[in-house]
């Protein structure tokens, strides 16, 4: 039998193999089974196919295809019909079957049978669980008010129902305290809005048309691995790859030029590049004249900053910066991708602002193949959140108190609870779902102290015994995302995707809608019709929107269900109309927003060290705690095939290690006034001098050294300059051989 290219491609998914490495047909032709095959290995690929969107918090938002046999999930692959996907999940997604059927899943409700955190549990029925939870919550409401109940959740499930649609209806009906879920992007949102009026940008599918791709503060391998093929396609057409990152990411190693600034000095670096562009006639004066305000103020401000100072602060030799700026400035089309890590600094908004301004000086907006990509929430921001969450049923939505999730340790403080710098009313109950704040929130030791309070009632809805669950009063088993239907919004490409129910709930587990719906009924709150609906109605409520992203092409619920994924409308090229989203309609080099926030209106050169207490400022190492490719926040720590990829290491610069007598694989101790953590040293020039890198969100319970170490024992819970975001990377530590 002869297999032509077309037949082969049908076999592996037609859109997946767009370019072949060899330029030749990749398969082989063989009509008959030869020796050595293991056809039994193919059995897991036979069955019914379900399309389901990965709901981890990652910019790829993969659409996956699951094979189901007799109600059991047996195999997962990428939905290759989708251009962004190809045939492959990421390293973690490959193991979703193992994730779902993990031996340590919690499959029935349990109540604490010893002291908090002692690890003694008694199995109870769901009826008992509901009775105990609802009676305790009712008592708390009676004695302390409904606003003494706090939900804690973030991105354990990013689905429309799973994240907000299900749980929020319950908390709104209760009248609970509001959780400000601002751990992530919001500092950069403010910084970018102060320049162009938005944090959204062009379609990453157009990255293949660029002449110059700039990866700034992102590790694509960890959080956008499916986007790398588009960068490589651009490079194969001759595009340059420029990278700015304090850590040598894989893409940094592959770059034409990689700049390694000292952490959080990006404002200075962006200013240096702007100075070079202007001085060497590489600033796009025509673009600047037509599209910006305050250019003279910018020139004046840049004059106040010298290359000497920039070199000193960033640690980058000016010649290298000039080389970078020259390639950038001479590129006809340059697209810049800003990562989701660098804004988690005390100066996060100010750094993001300077980088966006730099892109405007280069005139890189408004064409296909250029632009600034940060958070493409075109689909998500267009959903009708207030209807989907039933915000209107909250009894006092405008006056109820708020807790910023980054400040959860401060809010739960045993004697002096505070929020946003002010005393707050004590919290008496936390219902934790889609999250594991004891290992994920900053200052883990303080989080733990707060949860250990005798007067705090903690309910955890999860499918694993997390660092948070082990401190619970009652644990109720959640399903994984695969056990109920939902939808997902892409925040890189402009997609809205289906999440079909793949399998029935395992054991006695209940999903994020059923649990909260039934708890509401036990609390006597089901007189609200919003708490009696089905999954489809919640999705329809979210899709009840007038936003042009959905209405322009008249995207419907039925269409998403039928087609599995849709692309919402956005202008192309982005900003092609020259209308920016600031009040002035122009790119603002001089910003009233910055003045209102108390910062310099043009460029504010503040650094995180300015805001550290002296005890921390004087510590010799800056600790960065970014994502690693083999974990998704605190997920996958228990999953077969993934859990043995290291996640308890500290990367130490080669010269620093030599001075401290640290060798590869030595045990090291990181410490500051918040606590200590023990890791295995990876000695490498991947990090610069004075920087250590440890993976974020590792669990205390899973610490292979048994020392309850986790990176967040050390991290700061002080908020960013604007946006009220977390600032994990503004953490200093001491480092020693353990």
């Amino acid at each position, binding site marked *: 039998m*002869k*297999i032509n290219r077309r*037949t*082969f491609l049908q*076999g*592996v998914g037609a859109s997946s*193999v767009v*370019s*072949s*490495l*060899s*330029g*030749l*047909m*990749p*398969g*082989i*032709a*063989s009509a008959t*089974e*030869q*020796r*050595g*095959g*293991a056809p039994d*290995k*193919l059995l897991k690929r036979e069955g019914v196919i379900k399309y389901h969107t990965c709901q981890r918090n990652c910019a790829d938002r993969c659409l996956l295809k699951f094979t189901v046999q007799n109600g059991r999930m047996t195999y997962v*692959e*990428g939905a290759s019909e989708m251009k962004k996907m*190809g*045939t*492959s*999940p*990421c*390293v973690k997604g*490959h*193991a979703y*079957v*193992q994730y779902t059927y993990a031996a340590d899943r919690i499959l029935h409700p349990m109540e604490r049978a010893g002291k908090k955190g002692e690890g003694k549990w008694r199995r109870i029925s769901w009826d008992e669980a509901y009775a105990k939870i609802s009676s305790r919550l009712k008592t708390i409401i009676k004695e302390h008010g409904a606003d003494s109940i706090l939900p804690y959740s973030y991105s354990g499930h990013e689905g429309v129902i799973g994240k907000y649609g299900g749980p929020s209806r319950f908390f709104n009906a209760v009248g609970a305290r509001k959780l400000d879920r601002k751990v992530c992007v919001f500092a950069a949102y403010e910084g970018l809005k102060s320049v162009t009026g938005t944090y959204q940008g062009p379609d990453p599918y157009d990255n293949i048309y660029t002449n110059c791709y700039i990866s700034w503060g992102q590790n694509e*391998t960890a959080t956008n*691995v499916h986007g*790398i*093929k588009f960068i*490589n396609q651009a490079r194969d057409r001759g595009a340059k790859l420029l990278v700015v990152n304090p850590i*040598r990411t*894989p*893409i*940094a*190693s*592959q770059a034409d030029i990689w700049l390694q600034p000292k952490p959080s000095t990006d404002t200075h670096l962006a200013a240096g590049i702007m100075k070079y562009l202007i001085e060497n006639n590489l600033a796009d004066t025509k673009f600047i004249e037509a599209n910006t305000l305050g250019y003279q103020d910018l020139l004046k401000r840049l004059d106040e900053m010298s290359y000497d100072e920039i070199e000193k602060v960033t640690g980058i030799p000016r010649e*290298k910066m000039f080389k970078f700026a020259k390639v950038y400035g001479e590129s006809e089309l340059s697209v810049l991708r800003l990562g989701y890590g660098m804004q988690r600094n005390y100066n996060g908004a100010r750094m993001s602002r300077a980088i966006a301004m730099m892109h405007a000086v280069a005139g890189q907006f408004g064409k296909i193949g250029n632009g600034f990509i940060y958070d493409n929430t075109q689909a998500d921001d267009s959903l009708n959140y207030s209807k989907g969450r039933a915000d209107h049923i909250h009894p006092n939505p405008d006056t109820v108190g708020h807790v910023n999730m980054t400040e959860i340790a401060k809010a739960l403080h045993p004697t002096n609870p505070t929020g946003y710098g002010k005393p707050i009313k004590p919290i008496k109950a936390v219902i934790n779902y889609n999250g594991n704040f004891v290992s994920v929130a900053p200052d883990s030791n303080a989080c733990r102290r707060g949860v250990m309070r005798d007067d705090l009632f903690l309910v955890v809805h999860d499918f694993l015994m997390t660092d948070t669950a082990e401190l619970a009063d009652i644990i109720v088993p959640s399903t994984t995302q695969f056990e109920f239907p939902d939808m997902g919004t892409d925040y890189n490409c402009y997609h809205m995707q289906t999440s079909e129910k793949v399998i029935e709930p395992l054991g006695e587990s209940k999903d994020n809608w059923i649990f909260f719906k039934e708890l509401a009924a036990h609390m006597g709150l089901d007189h609200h019709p919003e708490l009696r609906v089905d999954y489809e109605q919640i999705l329809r409520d979210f899709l009840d929107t007038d936003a042009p992203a959905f209405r322009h092409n008249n995207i419907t619920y039925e269409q998403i269900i039928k087609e599995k994924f849709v692309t919402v409308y956005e202008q192309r090229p982005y900003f092609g109309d020259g209308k920016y989203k600031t009040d002035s309609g122009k790119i603002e080099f001089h910003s009233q927003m910055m003045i209102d926030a108390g910062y310099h209106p043009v460029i504010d050169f503040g650094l995180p060290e300015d805001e550290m207490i002296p005890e921390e400022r004087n510590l010799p190492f800056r600790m960065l705690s970014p994502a690693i*490719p*083999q974990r998704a926040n605190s997920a996958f720590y228990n999953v*077969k*095939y*993934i859990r*043995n*990829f290291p996640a308890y290491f500290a990367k130490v610069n080669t010269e620093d290690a030599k001075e401290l007598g640290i060798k590869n694989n030595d045990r090291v101790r990181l410490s500051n006034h918040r606590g200590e953590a023990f890791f295995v040293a990876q000695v490498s*020039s*991947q990090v610069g001098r004075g920087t250590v890198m440890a993976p974020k969100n590792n669990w205390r319970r899973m610490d292979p050294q048994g020392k309850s170490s986790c990176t967040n024992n050390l991290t700061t819970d002080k908020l960013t300059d604007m946006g009220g975001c977390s600032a994990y990377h503004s953490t200093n530590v001491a480092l020693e051989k353990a």
Partner: protein
Amino acid sequence: MSINQKVGFVFRQENCVGCGACTVACQIHNELPENHRFRKVDRYEVEREDGAIDVWLSHSCMHCENPACLMVCPTKAYHVRDDGIVVLDREKCTGCGLCVSACPYSAVNIREDDGKADKCNMCVELLDRGMAPACVAGCPVQCIEVGNIDEVLKKPSASKEGVGYGDCITKPNMVIIKERA
């Protein structure tokens, strides 16, 4: 294409980001014990004029033209198919380990669960059905393929040399593509 073509892995090393997806995809397809890997990914720190960079090598069985494993096996458990793929008949394996020592690419290992040798068979059960091996389909960066080695080697960008990899007496059939300087 002739059935007598030499089939081998084609690896674009300059694009590999070392995520380990190929390793896991292979383990899952082959239903391997957790700590047994047919395909591994190694990181090399390479010094260059303007500082070190990281380069990754994703490697498994090289399906050599002169397979050392086959030559040393006392029970004739190894076999070369018409297409050049070296396969192992585990029924015949006694677990003596001679092949493990003989392989210059550390591609054969003894499994802890049954004490017998095991290695990559290039997912021939998939190839024979016109489908891509698990590592090829399971690479999100799309930097591994299989191809006709003699044809691929005609490309100027193709060679049997890469970081952590080189030709040797066993004549390995993995090709590295290097399009960028």
